[in-house]
């Protein structure tokens, strides 16, 4: 071999390599994949249903038959934790999706329009940042009922602000770069520039912020459910289970510990993955 080898790889391959090189992020990703699998399959394979009551088994401790014990109504906690995980993960992903769609659209419009429209749109975002969001979400869930669909729509509708700022900043800096001018000069239509040149270049930051939004959204859902404003019994999410557990922690601590542990570890995995994605997709931020 003579001379330095020049390794060329696509930006996405490089990002994937950096991500897999990050032990914490890889562990987080693996845990999340595994969690999704067992939350999806677990309730189907379990001999119990999440709402099946067995009043002879009131709040029994973990055993061979019920790995995580049973609650006050004799429901199997393992099945309920997995089922609740499905609800929590689904709300987290869907609400993040709503936030991403609103944030990307808003940021794009603001960044592309520029000038006064941009200033006005960003002023609105600034003002919205000063809003007491938790209070609005509470009022919204009270007003529109505690429906699953409305729950994630409501959460998504208040979590898009940072996304809009990030996308707008990206679009503003991209707009001035030569390849956009080049595209303009050969007569590309605005939608061509938007979909071929701008969108692919904002995907990186969008993925980073989306992955950092998911744990926040899941926390908000759990908070609402904990306060009795989110998912309603007999349906369960981790927030519901943690509330039930907190009420009975004196005589049945496993009711609190298992859903609490699942929720905390999931948040931890999401944070590791989010940090890893940031370092992988945006090597400049590596410190």
């Amino acid at each position, binding site marked *: 071999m003579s001379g330095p080898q020049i390794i060329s790889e696509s930006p996405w391959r490089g990002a994937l390599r950096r991500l897999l090189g990050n032990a914490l992020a890889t562990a987080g990703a693996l845990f999340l994949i595994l969690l999704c699998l067992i939350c999806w399959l677990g309730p189907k394979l379990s001999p119990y249903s999440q709402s099946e009551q067995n009043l002879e088994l009131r709040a029994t401790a973990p055993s061979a038959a019920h790995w995580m014990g049973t609650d006050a109504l004799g429901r199997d906690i393992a099945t309920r934790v997995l089922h609740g995980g499905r609800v929590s993960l689904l709300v987290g992903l869907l609400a993040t999706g709503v936030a991403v769609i609103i944030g990307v659209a808003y940021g794009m419009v603001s960044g592309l329009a520029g000038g006064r429209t941009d200033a006005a749109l960003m002023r609105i975002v600034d003002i919205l940042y000063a809003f007491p969001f938790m209070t609005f979400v509470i009022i919204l869930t009270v*007003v529109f009922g505690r429906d699953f669909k409305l729950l994630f729509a409501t959460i998504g509708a208040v979590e898009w602000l940072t996304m809009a700022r990030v996308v707008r900043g990206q679009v503003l800096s991209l707009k001035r770069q030569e390849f956009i001018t080049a595209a303009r000069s050969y007569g590309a239509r605005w939608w061509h520039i938007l979909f071929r040149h701008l969108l692919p270049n904002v995907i990186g930051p969008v993925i980073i912020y989306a992955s950092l939004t998911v744990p926040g959204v899941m926390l908000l859902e759990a*908070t609402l459910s904990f306060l009795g404003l989110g998912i309603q019994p007999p349906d369960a999410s981790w927030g519901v289970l943690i509330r039930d557990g907190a009420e009975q922690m004196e005589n049945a601590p496993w009711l609190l510990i298992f859903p*609490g542990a699942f929720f905390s570890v999931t*948040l931890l995995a999401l944070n590791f993955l989010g940090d890893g994605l940031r370092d992988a997709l945006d090597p400049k931020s590596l410190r």
Partner: protein
Amino acid sequence: MLSFLASRILQGLAVILVVIVITFALMKFAPGGPFQSERAMPEYVRANLDAQYGLDKPWYVQLARHIKNFATFDLPLSYRYKGRGVGEIIAESFPVSLAIGVPALLIALGLGIPMGALAALKPNTFEDRAATIVSTLGVCLPSMVLGPVLALLFSLKLHWFNVAGWYDADDWVLPSLTLGIIYSAYIARLTRGGLRETLVQDFIRTARAKGASEATVVFRHALKLACLPVLNFLGPAAAGLLTGSFVIETVFQIPGLGQHFISAAMHQDYTLAMGTAAFYSALIVGFNILVDVIQAMLNPRIGFNS
């Protein structure tokens, strides 16, 4: 400076006004009314009640009256707590939230800043890793898990404190500790990031070149600038802490402001919900202005222009 303050205060007042209008609009959209959920009452009684609270007027008359009331600090009566004013309810529950929020804020700063600073000053050492792991764990422990776990440990097992309630002089400890630990994790992360970015800047090298001791460099030069991201976070966080965390007040059954807000929203107590929402947003706005002023004083490059 003065024009900066004036424009920020005007903007803040606009935010509070919009909060009142939106809260009112949402409550109006809600099915039923403040007196619908109660036991069946004769039609004329309800009509009387509606008239007494002005609910028989068109919506814009009601809204105008509410705004006028808030503007003149003449807070109306609560719909649910008969004969009690909204101002009275806030004045009664805010000190409770304060008694939990202030120690929580001190715990958060007292734990978070040293932990973040230690991690930043010794990058990639054991201390750094440990502090990073502890603060990541703190970010991931939701208050609804940490609160009950602390209660389980210190109240049910060790019997040091009451499990819940607001009776004894030390009932603030567990709620404050829960909130403080969680917020300290965020503060540690922000301090670490801010300090590490500051320590590589030119003016730090200049200070070192002049022969300043490490302590002077860190405390006199770096920490001031490194605290900017923490300050930014503290504005809304302080408002949230002082008005009481909804979850913590539920976990420890504390009669703070958060409790009133939730029950007001659930029972369609328009006046109390608007009052608490306006109070909360006024606090956020106030803290944000305070943060902006402190920031401008700490960082000469920001100034009072924006």
